[in-house]
């Protein structure tokens, strides 16, 4: 019953959108502007296993780049707080590079790494790295002073304080950062595939664009949305488990009138 109540609003919105889609295409809205459900289904059937392969390639690029960039970003963010020397040496560069959109680097990466997977992984990784570096740095600094002091007063060394205090205390701040970086990873991976790749959903959509197969483009968009949604769901589930100790302020807010 609770599940039904939770799912009902979203179900109604999705159902309304689907009804509008079935109703408006292809009669009201031309096929080229927005493909009909039948034409999308035809695109899925005609692509067959190729669609599964391209989807798999994109997902692997996203997951690897996101995981690599996030882990390194968290590590680098912790290193910035660990040592004032590392901070003074590296943080200005981080602040300078952070606003740059990773997609602006695509032409360089094609020249440096070619059209293979390594360049795309690095590109996706860089985007996630920046998000996680800044989030980790800020989260450590926002940890209340009393926790590391209490740990130190019980004999914990600096390394132990990072492991037992800072790392768990920043998890609630890292979960939203990981969600943002996952969405960014999809955006960067697909953009990289659009501009220079021989596989992946972005490549598939680029070929379809040239031949004006908007139904294939829509299939690509829908698969990216589903993959992104599933990854976000997985991060949220893992985050809920990892922060099961934290205050449930969202539940409290939901009870407010």
């Amino acid at each position, binding site marked *: 019953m609770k599940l039904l109540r939770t799912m009902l609003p979203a179900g109604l919105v999705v159902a309304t959108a689907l009804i509008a889609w079935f109703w408006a295409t292809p009669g009201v809205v031309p096929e080229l502007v927005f493909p009909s459900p039948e034409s999308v289904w035809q695109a899925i059937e005609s692509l067959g296993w190729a669609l599964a392969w391209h989807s798999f390639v994109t997902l692997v690029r996203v997951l690897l780049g996101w995981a690599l960039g996030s882990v390194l970003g968290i590590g680098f963010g912790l290193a910035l707080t660990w040592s004032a020397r590392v901070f003074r040496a590296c943080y200005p560069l981080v602040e300078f590079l952070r606003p740059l959109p990773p997609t602006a680097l695509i032409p360089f990466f094609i020249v440096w790494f070619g059209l293979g997977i390594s360049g795309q992984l690095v590109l996706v990784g860089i985007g996630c790295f920046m998000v996680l570096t800044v989030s980790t740095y800020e989260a450590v600094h926002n940890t209340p002073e*009393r926790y590391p*002091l*209490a740990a*130190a*007063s*019980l*004999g914990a060394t600096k390394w132990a304080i990072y492991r*037992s205090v800072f790392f*768990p205390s920043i998890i609630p701040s890292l979960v939203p950062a990981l969600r943002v970086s996952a969405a960014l990873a999809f955006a960067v991976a697909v953009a990289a595939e659009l501009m220079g790749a021989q596989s992946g959903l972005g490549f598939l959509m680029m070929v379809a664009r040239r031949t004006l197969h908007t139904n294939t483009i829509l299939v690509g968009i829908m698969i990216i949305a589903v993959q992104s949604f599933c990854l976000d769901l997985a991060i949220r589930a893992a985050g809920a488990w990892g922060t099961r100790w934290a205050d449930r302020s969202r539940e409290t807010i939901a009870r407010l009138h």
Partner: protein
Amino acid sequence: MVFRDIEEHLDVLTDISLEVSTGETLVILGPSGCGKTTLLRILAGFLTPSSGIVHVAGQAVTRPGVSSTMVFQEDATFPWMTVAENVRFASRYQAGAAQLRSNDVVAYLDLFGLGDFATAWPRTLSGGMRKRVELARALASRLPALLLDEPFGSLDVLTKRDMQVGLSRTLEREPRAVVMVTHDIDEALTLGNRIMVMSPRPGRVVEEVILRPRGGEPPHDSSRMRFRERILTAIEG
């Protein structure tokens, strides 16, 4: 002992000398900003005095957590650890000390009436219960000195009274050398064996009141009033 804030060019503490024995509680009272917490942080090893030295159990204090542990005014239970994990943390980084077994953890929790809450997350406990977890954790460290920085400052009157009684009883069973900072004269009279009154900055000792011998009862009404007057006079200068 002297402590000078180099950045602010301020003398914070001057001519401080104190000694506390095991089983004794020394309470430090004084106006806000007189350096009580600074003194406690020096004793804990978080700050180094500009001149002078701190010894605990014959060893000079060079870093925190080696010979003394501190309980803070704010809630410092680790919210990402269960109650039992919080207490077990006390022995995890004590060099040479045996790790607490589950029985030991439960025994320390039982001292504070928390035996049934071993697997609870701190967020599910009241403020008073979380403070008891911190005290259990501090005692479980088995360090010889216990430093309390207004530990009951944020609790309501009834909870505070229960906590004071509970702490007194527990310290009778698990004696430590205790230094406690508080603003509350009644709390000082209830828990202290001696009271040290400090002057406004730069903090120095202006009065020392001996209340009772180790293991003795807290002063009763008439002598309590007398001590109270003496302390108030010293604080007001």
